[in-house]
């Protein structure tokens, strides 16, 4: 089976996140880049499926030329082909992004399965997979934590408010997955070497504006506080027990 997996290059944020002086972007001078954990799991899922069933895994991203680094990371995990939809540094909204991905899938496909992460780590728009499914006329399930593929169909499971929901869907289909669906492998050395040499197929899709416009980014006010110290080591325990009592969490 032929699988398309879409990923997004995002800053690798650790303990703190800062905004550029013009308030328009995350300050990435001190950070590396990565893809969302959901998307890494989507690539792992695709690699496992094709190892079992045969076929190809094409990993696609829309982003700046540097996003080729993330494609190579995914090739090192076992993806077979890479496709970069190159942008010129402008921020792409979810509607334009979905249009570009749907066009690429039409042109390069057909694919039996289109996998996405449930939501991008940075913008958290939650809509690109659904919009791509509508553009291609395909069934779509999101938030999937367990996927079985056999023959022309798939059974997808997810959690909802403590319950499990099960969806039986025909293929081809669009599925967005969440971290926890699998435990992604570490890239192997041969995988890394192959990824370094692999060709990346590059296109330049047209940008378009959309109704939702970013005016600026800021750090929420509550980020700047400092904890009240109850003490060090075991000496702090009486104060901690008293605090828990005061908060009403002791029986």
């Amino acid at each position: 089976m032929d699988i398309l997996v879409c990923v997004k290059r995002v800053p690798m944020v650790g303990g703190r996140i800062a905004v550029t002086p013009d308030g328009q972007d995350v300050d990435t001078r001190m950070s590396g880049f990565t893809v969302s954990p959901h998307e890494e799991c989507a690539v792992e899922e695709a690699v496992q499926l094709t190892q079992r069933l045969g076929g190809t895994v094409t990993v696609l991203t829309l982003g700046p030329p540097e996003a080729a680094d993330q494609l190579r990371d995914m090739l090192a995990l076992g993806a077979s082909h890479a496709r970069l939809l190159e942008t010129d540094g402008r921020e792409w909204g979810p509607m334009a992004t979905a249009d570009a991905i749907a066009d690429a899938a039409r042109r390069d496909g057909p694919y039996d399965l289109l996998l996405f992460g449930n939501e991008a780590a940075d913008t958290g728009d939650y809509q690109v997979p659904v919009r791509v499914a509508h553009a291609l006329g395909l069934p779509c399930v999101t938030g999937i934590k367990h996927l079985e593929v056999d023959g022309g169909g798939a059974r997808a499971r997810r959690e909802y408010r403590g319950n499990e929901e099960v969806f039986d869907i025909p293929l081809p289909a669009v599925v967005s997955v969440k971290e926890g669906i699998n435990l992604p492998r570490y890239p192997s050395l041969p995988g890394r070497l192959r990824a370094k040499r692999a060709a990346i197929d590059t296109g330049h899709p047209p940008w378009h504006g959309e109704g939702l416009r970013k005016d600026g980014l800021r750090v929420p006010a509550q980020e700047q506080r400092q904890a009240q110290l109850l003490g060090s080591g075991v000496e702090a325990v009486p104060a901690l027990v008293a605090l828990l009592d005061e908060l009403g969490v002791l029986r």
Partner: protein
Amino acid sequence: MTVLCVVEADEGGLADSSRRVLAFARGLAGSSGENLAAALFGPAAGVPAGELGECGVPDGYAIDSAELTGYAPLAWARALSGLAASLPATAVVAAGTDRGSELMAHLAAITGQPMAANCVSAARDEAGGCRLVRHRWAGSLLEDATLDAPVAVLTVAVDAVAPTPAGAPAVTAVHAVEPELEPGDLRVRATESATRGTGISLATARVVVGGGRGVGGPEGFAPLEELAGLLGAAVGVSRVVTSQGWRPHTQQVGQTGTRITPELYLACGISGAIQHMAGCLGAKHIVAINTDAGAPIISRAEYAVIGDLSEVIPALIAGIRQHNDKS
């Protein structure tokens, strides 16, 4: 002109996330003098009219048909788009849960509208657009944004909006709505829905005991489990713990795990990465136990103990036992 909210109810009444959606939507409707309405799926008899009234909702719409049994994302979105067109709605708002996000994404795709996910507040501007504040990085950053669309399709960051009741309650009239579906709308539907897992749910636990890299390994969780048992708490972990395979992913608290909303989050050996803290926005009080006074968690917690878990946790367990024996 109506702000239409998608709400959920079960035997326990109106869902907490729905109260938060309605509190958010009152802000939007109030800024423009629009009506507030709620839609929910199921028979009219299941509409919690009293609770909707407390939330200031004069009109409740029960979307129900023989075809629509169980959850079917595209069919539900189609039904909402029909109802929104008939009112007509100038905004459709749902909780930023998996289901709410999925429904609004389908609705936006069906109607060709933009969608703003995880909003914290919204108000109409003079030009008739929406001025929004919404989450980025799962709430670690805020985005100020403008939405220009005939119908504003929004989801609400429910852990950032309080479920306050309306200042002026309403008497809710309940209307039954028969949806018009299109062929293929029911191609995707939940075929079974099984309750699983017993014990305290991480998402709704009143107390969560969290463990991170500082726990040291899988065996280090035994004292945390014991502490959680004493407090009637759920155990949550950071991403490093699940990616090391020390604990299952179902226990992960964070941007790609579970969002928690406890009274108390006791974060043990957790550095406080952005990824983790995004899952704790709804925690009322955070107490950190960490060896490193410079860890990011210390500037995010309300209280902190600087110390080694292997000493502090057993002493804390003993201290709580002693307290419980006395009382």
